[in-house]
């Protein structure tokens, strides 16, 4: 029943409806009017859509081509940008300054083999002028850059020992030890 209802054509449905309202001859006339009009509409649609598939194909080809060109253009742009960036980076690159720790062995005569390090490279000429050993002899000899920091530190250490020794000369009971020097260094470092 349902299938039969589904298969009722729009034309059959139209006829049934017209039969409810009009006599048989009027129904036939109206039905013809509807059929003719439908045929005219179909003909007009056919005329209007003539060559539509050709136009669609042309448009599709145009779209495909423009998409392809868009991909090429984008790739070319990206590549040229990359090359430009690389060229710019290369032109701007300078030697990189690496400040490395200078490590050297102590040349101190105090007998310690402590390795001294410094984070900066001192100016050789200024160190030579400042370096005044506790014996009062000004050293003007050429100093290798490798030992500059160690020499400076030793000189400082010697000067400190002599200062302490002089100030404590009246105190017979006190003897300066290596550990005392280390402690004093530590205190000096802490700003005392």
């Amino acid at each position, binding site marked *: 029943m349902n299938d039969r209802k*589904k298969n009722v*054509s*729009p*034309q059959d*449905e*139209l006829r049934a*409806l*017209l039969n409810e*309202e*009009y006599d048989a001859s*009027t129904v036939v*006339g*109206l039905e*013809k*009017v*509807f059929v003719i*009009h*439908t045929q*005219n*509409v*179909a*003909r*007009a*649609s*056919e*005329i*209007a*859509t003539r060559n*539509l*598939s050709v*136009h*669609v*194909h042309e*448009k*599709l080809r145009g*779209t495909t081509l423009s998409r392809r060109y868009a991909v090429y253009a984008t790739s070319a742009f990206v590549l040229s940008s990359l090359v430009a960036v690389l060229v710019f980076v290369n032109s701007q690159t300078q030697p990189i300054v690496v400040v490395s720790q200078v490590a050297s062995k102590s040349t101190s005569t105090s007998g310690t083999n402590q390795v001294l390090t410094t984070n900066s490279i001192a100016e050789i000429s200024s160190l030579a002028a400042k370096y005044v050993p506790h014996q009062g002899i000004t050293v003007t000899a050429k100093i290798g850059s490798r030992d500059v920091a160690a020499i400076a530190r030793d000189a400082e250490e010697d000067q400190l020992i002599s200062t302490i020794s002089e100030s404590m000369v009246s105190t017979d009971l006190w003897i300066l030890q290596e550990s005392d020097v280390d402690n004093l260094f530590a205190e000096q470092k802490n700003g005392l």
Partner: protein
Amino acid sequence: MALILENDADILDEYRTGQRDRAVTAFVRKHQSFVYSVAYRHLNHNEDSQDAAQEVFLRASQKLGEFKGESTLQTWLYRITVNVCLNMRRKKRFLSFFAIGEGEGERDVAALQHSPATHAEQSEFDIYFQAVLVTIPTKQRETFCMRYYDELSYEEISELTGTSEGALKANYHWAIKKIAAAIRTSDYYEEWFENERP
């Protein structure tokens, strides 16, 4: 391989197996009248409807491979057509805002009654019939057109419009009664009927 692609399944198979040009040609030829008719009902303008139909097939052809088959190709095309027509109308409305002396409503009526293309392709009676269609409510008109011209089932129309089948049947019946009454009382009918009578 089918020589003539008559049904949607064959068209889709052909498209998916790589014979795209052939499949698109068959696809357009099979559904072009339907798409144009739907577009014409929404736009009431021959050239605009042709442009809309072209745009619909362009979009549909590009997405044909992605069609999942959850509905028929016809209902899928109907949705695309309605969307394209709505976009075109929006664009027209936006442009008409800047145009002097031509509103959308004026253009619709003009297209129905005075378009040279319409005059060339349609008889006076067809123009009168179109004018009668315009006088009935939109839902009834659309239901009538989809059911009578496009020969869609109530189930398909319901799926497309979201209206219940019962309401669609009522719309179709009211539309036919109004159109028949208008034609029955027109001079065209009398003249035509008199000529046909033996």
